[in-house]
């Protein structure tokens, strides 16, 4: 699960934390190359990510990985007297991670990502707008702790700090001010 808190700059006095289902899959293509996929969904809006990651151990405690993910998001809202809108877009996330084994059972991973908007399209009724910015929209820094949980399964707890001008989960708020806002995200998951 991912819990994202709304930034007060756009939701004003309303502060809510929105949950999203978050499913991650990873498969090794070779000893050090992996393909990853990720689905986040809140039903009315979803995000599908595909990426490649190259990872290598640096020593007994440190691991390093670099990768690039491409993410497509889509949202549609149809509410009486409120919305007849939909939007979708493409975002690129080049990223690098460092893993550190803190104790025998506890690992910390720190991940840095650039967020590059590739495409945005929004439609209300019969009107639509489209942007092809290809610009760096923001950055994200993630800290994740992982430890064994039960029967060879692991549990993860993390914090992702996103500083971005646009966050796909808030497309329906149509924020227009050009500034990087802070979107804190709490990550909680099981590695099966």
């Amino acid at each position, binding site marked *: 699960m991912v819990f994202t808190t709304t930034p007060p700059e756009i939701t004003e*006095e309303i502060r809510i934390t929105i949950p999203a289902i978050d499913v991650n899959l990873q498969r090794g293509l070779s000893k050090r190359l992996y393909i990853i996929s990720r689905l986040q969904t809140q039903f009315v809006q979803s995000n599908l990510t595909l990426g490649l990651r190259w990872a290598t151990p640096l020593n007994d405690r440190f691991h390093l990985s670099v990768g690039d993910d491409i993410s497509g998001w889509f949202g549609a809202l149809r509410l009486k007297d409120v919305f007849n809108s939909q939007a979708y877009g493409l975002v690129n996330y080049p990223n690098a991670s460092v893993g550190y084994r803190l104790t025998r059972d506890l690992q910390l991973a720190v991940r840095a990502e650039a967020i590059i908007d590739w495409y945005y399209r*929004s439609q209300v009724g019969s009107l639509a707008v489209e942007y092809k910015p290809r610009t760096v929209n923001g950055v994200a820094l993630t800290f994740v702790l992982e430890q064994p949980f039960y029967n060879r399964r692991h549990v993860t707890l993390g914090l992702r700090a996103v500083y971005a001008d646009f966050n796909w989960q808030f497309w329906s708020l149509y924020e227009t001010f050009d500034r990087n806002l802070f979107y*804190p995200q709490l990550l909680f998951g099981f590695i099966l």
Partner: protein
Amino acid sequence: MKAVAYLMIGLCTLIFGCREEYEAPVPYQFVSPPGAGRFTTSIRQAMEGVYAVTNGADRFGSQVALKWTYTLEGADTTFYLSIFAGQDAAFFNLEGRPDSDSLVVAGFWRKLVNTETGLVRFSVRTRRNGQIRNFSGVSRPGDTLMLDGTYGDNSVQPNRRLTLLYERPLNSTPYEILAHRAGGRTSDLLPTSENSLDMIKLASRLGATGIEIDVRYTKDGVPILYHDNKLNLRLIQKNGLIGAVEEYTYQQLSSHVRLINGEKIPTLEEALETVIANTTLRFVWLDTKYIGPMDKVQAIQQKYRQRAILARRDLRIVIGLPSTEAVESYRALASKENTPILCELDTAVTRSLNARIWAPRWTLGPQTEEVKAMQAENRTVFVWTLDEPQFIQQYINEGQFDGILSNYSTLVAYYHYTRQP
């Protein structure tokens, strides 16, 4: 494990402590001399229009719209020149400079989608057969009016060339440019606070022909202007008071609470008095943020409607009905005579209330058939609250609406005035 704890605390401090503060202070001090000075009525009329940007288009776009506005203070009238640009919701606010022996305007520019701002200064000139001379107020055949000037960033003295060449008159099609929260949100970093008297006075310089204001009641039943449910540091300066404005008397709010830019929270009566006494605005939308009886707001609406009639002002003051609760409050009024309303719910409710104005959300789309049907029944249709620049352009060019409510009234003004019928 201690090291891990320290590490996590340090990282959290780093993450949460890096939030950037955004500011856009106005770099120009207005002299605001009463009267028009050298800018006589005929000169002001000649200057209004759509201009091509021949120097500075990379920063402000290829064309702009120039429009004069004025505010009233007793018997004094103060004129301002506004320039509306399409790029990044940029606008200029200028005044005639009395310290020059030719036609000179100076002021500041700002982009509403970011914090970019700066100083600007123009001389009004004419160009004819490549020759440029100061404009005397009389145009000869073949003359092209031009504003020749410079601009700079922030408080830096203007040193970059900015030239505007007259192209055509402003689009004169009737259209309401309605400014949200009296002119714009506090978060848009304007020099005055949302829902304040100063913002009402500023609204026309931001392109507005009308305003939307948020009405709530104090504990002792005084209708005031305030948007949020609670007192919070988004809107007011730190003062120790917390909770809903409805929990405080007007005297308490007046004594202890200041809006973010230092203004008092105004009463609805003060706001409408300001509209009539100080501005040329022609539309006021009273957004119903309270739940409960509407009779006090109705009485004030009717009082100031009469005042506007006596002052020979073309001013409509309407009560907005955004919810079924507000509709019920309206239905509960003993008399609905001389109480214009605006309905934000669907067309069926609008018809059942016989509201003369229908105002759907912009996120429902252009709704062309419904809009035309309502207009055929002699109703006015506005759309709210539309800020997305490309959609503003499309709603003006392709939509059938009679006006747009926006936080970017400057951008609505730009697309409306530059539109070619």
